[in-house]
C-alpha cells in the first residue's frame, strides 16, 4: 500500500506538490497531469529520493526516505532518457539487478528473463545501448524495473517512443502485472495512453491532486465540467439567442470571423438541442470542443478546485 498524508514538498519557495493525500492499494493507477504538474516530484517522494517538507509518505509499510531497503520491493522506470555509454542492455540490466543484492549469476538470469518479457532478447540485448532506438531504450528501462520482480511498479511516461505494437505489448505486460497482485502507478500526460491499462485515476496539476477515482467517477466529473464549444453557423445571432432562451449556455461570445464560442454545463442536452435546431434551418456547419487538450481540461479542473467554477 502507498499512503500520502498531507504531503507538501517545497523547493525553496517553489511548490513541488501541495497537500497531497491519497492511498493506493493493489491495482493500477494512472497519474495524469500536464508537464510540470508535479508528477515526477510525487514519484521522487514515493521513491524516497526527496524528503517531504510537510506530511508523511509510507510505501509498503515503511518511510522510503529513512528506510531505503523498501526500494528492493519497488521497480522504477524514470522518464529521463537512458544514456549509458559502453554497455549493452544485458550488462546494464544485470548490473541494476545486482544493485538489488542479487549475486551476479542470479542477476544475469533475472535480467535475461526480464529482457525477454519486454521483447528485447537475443542479439539486440548485447548491442551497446547508445545504438538503440528510443523504443528499445524504453524497453530496456522497463526491463530493469521488472527484473527483480517488484510488488510496486512506478512508470514515468513509459510509452514514449513505443510504436503501436510496442504499446499493445506493454499494456498486456502491465495488465498481467496488476493481475498478479502488483500495484502499478503509471504517470503520463496523455490520457489515452493510460486508459488502456484501465486504471483508477489521480489527476494532478500545479502540485495539487485535483481529482481521483475510478474511470466512471472521473468520466462523470468530466461530464459535469463546463465545456467550451466553438460553433460556425450562417446565423450566429439567431443561434445565440435560441441557446440563451433555452438556458443551455451560460456564456456566448461572438468572434470577429463570425464564429461563436459558448460555454455550457449541460453538454449532453446542448448537443441534442443542436440537432433539433438543424430542423429549424439553424444549421451548424462546424463545431469544435475548446477543452480538447489535457492542459485545458486541467486548467478547468484547477479553476473548479479553487471554487471559481
Amino acid at each position, binding site marked *: 500500500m502507498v499512503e500520502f498524508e498531507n504531503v507538501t514538498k517545497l523547493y525553496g519557495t517553489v511548490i513541488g506538490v501541495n497537500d497531497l493525500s491519497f492511498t493506493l492499494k493493489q491495482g493500477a493507477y494512472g497519474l495524469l497531469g500536464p508537464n510540470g504538474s508535479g508528477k*515526477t516530484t510525487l514519484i521522487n517522494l514515493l521513491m524516497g529520493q526527496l524528503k517531504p517538507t510537510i506530511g508523511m509518505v509510507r510505501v509498503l509499510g515503511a518511510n522510503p526516505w529513512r528506510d*531505503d531497503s523498501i526500494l528492493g520491493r519497488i521497480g522504477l522506470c524514470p522518464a529521463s532518457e537512458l544514456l549509458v555509454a559502453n554497455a549493452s542492455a544485458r550488462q546494464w540490466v544485470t548490473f541494476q539487478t*545486482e544493485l538489488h543484492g542479487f549475486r551476479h549469476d542470479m542477476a544475469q538470469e533475472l535480467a535475461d528473463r526480464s529482457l525477454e518479457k519486454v521483447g528485447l532478447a537475443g542479439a539486440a540485448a548485447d548491442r551497446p545501448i547508445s545504438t538503440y532506438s528510443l523504443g528499445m531504450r524504453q524497453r530496456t528501462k522497463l526491463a530493469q524495473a521488472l527484473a527483480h520482480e517488484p510488488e510496486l511498479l512506478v512508470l514515468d511516461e513509459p510509452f514514449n517512443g513505443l510504436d503501436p505494437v510496442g504499446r499493445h505489448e506493454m499494456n498486456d505486460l502491465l495488465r498481467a502485472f496488476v493481475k498478479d497482485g502488483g500495484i502499478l502507478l503509471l504517470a503520463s500526460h496523455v490520457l489515452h495512453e493510460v486508459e488502456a491499462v484501465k486504471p483508477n485515476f489521480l489527476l494532478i496539476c500545479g502540485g495539487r491532486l485535483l481529482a481521483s477515482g475510478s474511470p466512471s467517477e472521473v468520466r462523470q466529473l468530466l461530464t459535469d465540467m463546463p465545456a467550451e464549444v466553438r460553433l460556425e453557423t450562417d446565423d450566429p445571432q439567431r443561434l445565440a439567442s435560441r441557446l440563451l432562451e433555452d438556458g443551455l449556455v451560460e456564456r456566448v461570445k461572438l468572434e470577429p470571423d463570425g464564429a461563436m464560442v459558448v460555454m455550457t454545463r449541460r453538454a449532453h442536452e446542448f448537443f441534442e438541442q443542436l440537432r433539433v435546431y438543424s430542423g429549424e434551418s439553424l444549421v451548424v456547419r462546424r463545431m469544435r470542443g475548446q477543452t480538447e487538450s489535457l492542459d485545458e481540461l486541467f486548467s478547468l479542473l484547477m479553476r473548479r478546485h479553487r471554487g471559481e467554477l
Partner: protein
Amino acid sequence: MNRDIRSRSLATAILATARFEFERSLSAGRLSVMACLALFPPCITLISILGQAASVGQFEQAVDVFIAVTCYIVCVLASLIWSTTVVTAELEGKTWAYSASRPGGRIAIAIGKYLVSCFWTAIVTTLAITASLMVRSVLIGGGNELQTWLVLVSAGVAATVAYGSVFLLLGAIFQRRAMVAAIVYGLLFEGIIAAIPAVISNLTVRYPLTYLVFRGLLPDNILKSDFFTTFYSDYGILNAIIALAGIILITFSVAIALIRYREFITSDEA
C-alpha cells in the same frame, strides 16, 4: 518473488558497481587519457635532464624532486577528473534515478565508482613514476632507485586515496560545476595555502604528503636545514600519517553521508 535469495549485502552492490564501472572504463577514450597522463612525467623528465646534460651529476636529488612534483600533478589531475565526477556524471548522464532507486544504491554507486577512480589514478601515477625513474636511471644512474620508487609509489597511493576522497566530497557538495570547484580547491588550498608555513597548511593533503616524500628522499643535511625546519618544525612522520588518515576519513565519511541523504534534483520538473 526472489527476496529470499538476495544477499542484501552492500558489499555485493559495491563490487557489482566497481566491476561494471571497470569494464566500462576500458574504452579507447579513457585509455588515451590515461596514456597521456602517464607519459607526461617521463617525457618532461627526459626533456629537463637533456637540457641540463652538462651538469647532470649535481642534479640527482633535484631530478628526484622534479619527478615527484610532476607525478604529483598527474595524480591530482587524474583524481580530479575521475573522482569529482562520481556523482555528477550519474546526474548529468541521467542514470542517477536508476541506481539511487536501489536499496543502498546511492552508497554502492559512490563507493564502487570511487574505488575504480582510485584504481586508475593509482595505476596512472605508478606508471608515471616508474617510467620517469627509468628515464632518470638510464640518463643519470647512481641513485637508490628502489627506495625512490617505493617512496614515490607509496606517496602516490596515499595521494590517490586522499585526493579521491576530497574530490568525491566536492562532487557531492557541488551538484553543478563540481570540476570548477575542484580546480579552485586545487589551486587555492593545495597550490597556495599548502605552501604557507602556518598551521592552516596542516589542513591540506599536500603538506603531510610532501613531508613524507621529503623524509624518504632527501639526505639528512637538507632535512636539518633551516629552510626545512622552518617549514615543518617538529612535524614528524606519525603526525603526517595521522593528518592524511584524518583527511581521508573525514572527507570520505562526509561525502558518503551527503550522497546518502542529499536530495539530488534529477528532473526539471518541480
